[in-house]
């Protein structure tokens, strides 16, 4: 599932004053909702499926090692109402993506749920976000 492809290096972190109001069916307790990480990498998979759409992307970390990140988004019905489709991302796309990282340091992030959708720029073009 986690392929290793070359990606550009870029990880930056922004601390938010208040947590976003993301509202996934399972809650947000596994993610640090007061922190936003900006990832720059290459999409390896985009799963347009319930209960949540998932983006897999390769990102080079600060030591130059490529890590495959799992980015969670809203359900297809929720994302489609925000302007996304199953074709919004495809393997090979160069992506700059904001995400709330996992609290435990895993390469997992939450980027969207019911009312929020963090910024995704795909091949230089931003997708809808709110």
């Amino acid at each position, binding site marked *: *599932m986690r392929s290793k492809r070359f990606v550009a290096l870029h990880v930056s972190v922004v601390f938010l004053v208040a947590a976003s*109001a993301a*509202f*996934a*069916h*399972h*809650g*947000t*307790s*596994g*993610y640090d909702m007061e922190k936003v990480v900006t990832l720059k990498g290459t999409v390896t998979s985009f799963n347009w*499926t*319930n*209960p*949540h759409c*998932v983006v897999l992307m390769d990102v080079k970390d600060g030591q130059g090692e490529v890590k495959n990140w*799992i980015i*969670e988004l*809203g*359900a*297809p*019905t*929720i994302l489609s*109402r925000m302007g996304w489709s199953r074709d919004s991302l495809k393997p090979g796309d160069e992506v700059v993506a904001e995400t709330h990282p*996992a*609290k*435990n*340091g*895993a*390469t*997992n992030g939450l980027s969207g*749920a*019911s*009312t929020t959708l963090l910024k995704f720029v795909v091949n230089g073009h931003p997708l809808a976000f709110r």
Partner: protein
Amino acid sequence: MCDQKTRLATVLLAAAVFSPNLRAQTAGPSADAKKQDAQSSANAPDFSGAWAVVGGSPSWDPSDPRGAKPEELSMTPWAMARFKAARPPFGANATFDNTNDAVQKYCDPPGITRLYSYPWQFKLIQTPDMVYILFEFTGVWRPVALNRDHPKDPDSTWMGDSIGRYEGDTLVVDTVGFNDKTWIDQVGHPHSDALHLIERFRRVDQDTLQVSVTFEDPKAYTKSFTGKKVFKLSHSPMEVTLCSLSEMQSFQDEVMKPTTDSLHK
């Protein structure tokens, strides 16, 4: 076979929704109920449209809608024990780790009042005899009979037995006959099979629907309480988001589990 079942269910639902002659079989309408029904049908407020939750507060406790202090709801010892055992997705006790949320673990029905907390739409379909409430999340629906009383000894079910009446601009829905398998909210508050719900639907303006729910459950709560949620008119068509156990398990294994893996801590 599944397709046949799906088609049959669709036909039955369509018949139920669009047939004005369908009558509940459990109890005949009283004279008062018939009179109320006639008044109601002639003056029923319009709840048409799809409704989407605003904000998404996970608890119905009016003094703690975010579930920051969920233990302060006035629970009986029986309910408190269940509450302490709950590992819910939201509120002060929110956790990803080893959840016992039956919706996540088994795709169990979320229960009526918890359904209003999800970010999916619902819709009320009004007929002279019945109101049908259709929920996008899990594709469940519930009937509300406008012309009869509750059965004297209703079965205990996931959705209970709902009867309704119109009071001016408000639809009042009274429901009993629940099992005790669901939580009333997203923060792990339980209920018993004695739960009695009174829901009040009121269209505050063209684009706003307010739903207030009074919870009466003497086995679980030492006093009743009433919570409110506000929904906005959606311009998106109704869709269905099913809860597939295989999809849910894959998601938990591949997406959620890494965030609780102690090796990363």
